[in-house]
C-alpha cells in the first residue's frame, strides 16, 4: 500500500477541494430553486395562500439558531489558531447542540403539519388546488433535503471536533476544522434562502 501522499501540506488545495464540493451542493439545491421559481410563477396566488399556513415564528427561531451556530463554528477556528484547543472543542460542541435544536424545532414543525393531515399524498392535501399541493410538496422536499444536510454537517462537525480534542487539528494544522466549518456555513446559507422563500414571501 502506498503511503506516498504529499510530502508537503497544501492547505489552499484542500480548501479548494471543499469549495468545489460546495459548488456542487449549491447546484443540487439550485435545481430545486429552479423548480420553485417556475411553480411560483405559474401558481402565484396559491403559493401566497399556502405560505400563510407556515409558522413564521418557528422559522425565525430556527434562522437565529443556525446563524448563531455559524458564529460558534467560526469562533472555534479562531480559538484553534490561538492555540486554545479546549475552547475550540467546546465551541464545536455548541455548534452541534444548536444543530440538534434546529432539528428538534423542525421535527415539531413537520409533526404539526402531519397532524393537520398535510403531507405529500395525503387525502387532505389532495383536496386542495394543485398550486398548494406543489407548494407543500416543495416545502417538504426542500426543508427535508436541508435537514439531511444538517445531519451530515453534524457528523462532519463531530469528526473534526474529535480531531481537535485529540490534537490532530491544532494551531499549526487546522485546515480540517476549517473545511468542516465551510461545510457548516453552506448548510446555513441554504437555509438563509429557504427561510424567506417559504416563510416570508406571502
Amino acid at each position, binding site marked *: 500500500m*502506498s503511503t506516498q501522499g504529499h510530502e508537503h501540506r497544501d492547505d489552499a488545495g484542500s480548501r*479548494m477541494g471543499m469549495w468545489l464540493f460546495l459548488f456542487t*451542493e449549491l447546484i443540487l439545491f439550485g435545481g430545486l430553486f*429552479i*423548480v420553485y421559481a417556475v*411553480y411560483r410563477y405559474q401558481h402565484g396566488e396559491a403559493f401566497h395562500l399556502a405560505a400563510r399556513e407556515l409558522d413564521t415564528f418557528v422559522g425565525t427561531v430556527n434562522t437565529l439558531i443556525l446563524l448563531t451556530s455559524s458564529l460558534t463554528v467560526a469562533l472555534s477556528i479562531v480559538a484553534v489558531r490561538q492555540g486554545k484547543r479546549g475552547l475550540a472543542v467546546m465551541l464545536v460542541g455548541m455548534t452541534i447542540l444548536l444543530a440538534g435544536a434546529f432539528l428538534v424545532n423542525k421535527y415539531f414543525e413537520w409533526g404539526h403539519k402531519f397532524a393537520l393531515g398535510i403531507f405529500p399524498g395525503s387525502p387532505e392535501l389532495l383536496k386542495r388546488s394543485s*398550486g398548494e399541493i*406543489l407548494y407543500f*410538496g416543495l416545502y417538504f*422536499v426542500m426543508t427535508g433535503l436541508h435537514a439531511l444536510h444538517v445531519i451530515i454537517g453534524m457528523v462532519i462537525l463531530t469528526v473534526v471536533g474529535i480531531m481537535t480534542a485529540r490534537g490532530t487539528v491544532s494551531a499549526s494544522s487546522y485546515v480540517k476544522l476549517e473545511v468542516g466549518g465551510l461545510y457548516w456555513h453552506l448548510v446555513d446559507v441554504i437555509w438563509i434562502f429557504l427561510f424567506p422563500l417559504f416563510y416570508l414571501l406571502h
Partner: protein
Amino acid sequence: MGSPVSPASQAEPDFYHVATKRRGIFAWILSTDHKRIGILYLVTMSFFFLTAVFIGFTMRLEMLTPGKTIIEPQTYNTLFTLHGIMMIFLFIIPGLPAVFGNFLLPLMIGAKDVFFPRLNLLSWWLFLTGGILAVVSVFLPGGAADTGWTFYVPYSIRTSTNVFPALTAAFVLGFSSILTGLNFITTIHRMRAPGMSWFRMPLFIWALYSTAWIQVLATPIIGITLILVALERFFGVGIFDPALGGDPVLYQHLFWIYSHPAVYIMILPALGVVSEIIPVFARRTIFGYKFIAFSSVAIAFFGSLVWAHHMFTVGMSNTGMFIFSLLTFLVSIPSAIKIFNWVATLYKGSIEVSVPLLHVLSFIVQFSIGGFTGLMLGALAINIHVQDTYFVVGHFHYVMFGGTGFGLFAAIHYWFPKMFGRMYAKKPAVVAWFLATVGFNIFYFPFFILGYLGMPRRYYDYLPEFQSLHVIATVGSWILVAGILIMVVNLLVALRRGARAEANPWGGATLEWTVSSPPPLENFHEIPIVTKGPYDFTPSAAETK
C-alpha cells in the same frame, strides 16, 4: 514506501511489482495509487462495455426482421434502457477521464499522485456500487427498468419495473463522477511540476480540465432530478406528476440541463486524446495550441447552454427555440476549430501510420459526420421532421461511438505500452481497426436514411419497406463486433506475450514518456522541471532515439 536512494532507474521495479502492504486483490481494490485505480476502472469499465455491446448486438439482431425475431417487446424495451444506462453512465462518461485521466494526469503534469488519493479510491468504489446496482436491478422481481435511459416522467413514475434501483445507480455514478472532477481540478491547479505553466500543459490535460468543470457543475442537477423522480414514486409529491399539477416538461428541462453538458463530458476527453496523438505521429508541433486549449473551454461553456434543443417539439416559445438553435450552432465553431487545427498539423508532417493514428483518422471523419448531422438537428425545420427517429440515433452514435469510442480505442493503443509495459501485435490491431471502422459505418449510416424516411427510435416493430436498410445495419453490427473482439483478444494476448516496451516507443514529448514503462510507484524520483512545450520535437530530443 521508502524509495531507494539510488537514481538508477533500470533496477527499479515498476508499480506492478513493488511490495505492497496488502496482498492479492486487496493490493488493488484498497490502493490509493492513481495508476492502480486507473487500471481498476479499465477492468470494470471493459466488463460493462462488453456487456452493453452484447445488448446492442442482440437488439440489432431483433431488428433484422419485422415483428418478433428473437426477443419479446418488453425485453426489447428493457434492453434499450439497459444499453443506454450502461453505455452512458458506466462506459462513456467514466471511460476516458476515469481510466486514462487517472492513470495519466499525474504523469503528464509531473506529479506523484492526484491531490486527493483516498477520495479517488472512493470514486471507484462508488462507480462499482452504481454498476452493481444497475446489474442487480435487472434480476430483482419487477423486471429491469423500461423507461429508456432518459427516465422521462410521467412514465417513469407509473411503470412497475425496477426504476428505483436504476435511478439510485445513476445517482451514485453521478456522485462518483463529481468526485473525480473535483479531484482533477484541484490536482491541475495545485500539483503541476515547476515550469509547467498553463500553456505548457498537454492538450489532453486541458480537455480533462474542461471536462472536470462540467462534471462538477452539471452533475448535481441530474442528482436532484433523479431524487425528485424517486420521491415522486414513493410519496406522490406532485412536482413532476401532471395529475397533481406538476409539469413533465420541467423534468425534461432539468434532465437535459445535465445531460446535454454530459455529452461534452463524453466527447471532450476524446478530443484531447486526438490532440495528443496527432502531433506525435506527424512529428510536428500542434497547430494552434491555444486555439485548441481554449476551444475545449468554449465547448464546455456553450455546451452548457444548449440543452433545450432536445425538446423542440414539446411546445416552447418561438423565441426560446430560436435562442437554443442559435447556441447549438455556436458550439460547432470551437469543434470545427479543433478539426481544422488537427488537419493543419497533419499537413506536411512526416506521418507515421500507426494504429493509434488510424483510429484517430476514423475519429475525425466519423466525428465530423456526427457533428454535421448535429447541426442539421439543431436547425428547427429539420429537427421537427426527424425528432425521435433513427436519424437522431445515427447522429449520437456517430458522435458517441464513432467519436468517443474510437477516441478510446486510439487512447488504449497509444498508451498501452506505458500502462502495461508491453507492445501489441500491429497486424491484428490494423485488421481490428479496419473491421471496426467499416462495420461501424455500415451499421450506423443507414440510420440516417431510415430516420429521414420516418423510422421512429425505440420501436420494436417496423414497416416492411424499412427492412433492407435494417438488414444492412445488422450486418454492419456483426462486422463491428468482430473488429472489437479481435481488438480485445489482441490486447489480451499482448498483456502476456507482447514484447517489452521501451520508455518512449512512439517518440512522444510529453512527460509520461520520460519515465519507464510501466511507471515506477512514485512516477518521478525528482519532480521534473519543465522547460519546453508538450509537442516540442526538437532534434536534441530526436537524436537520443
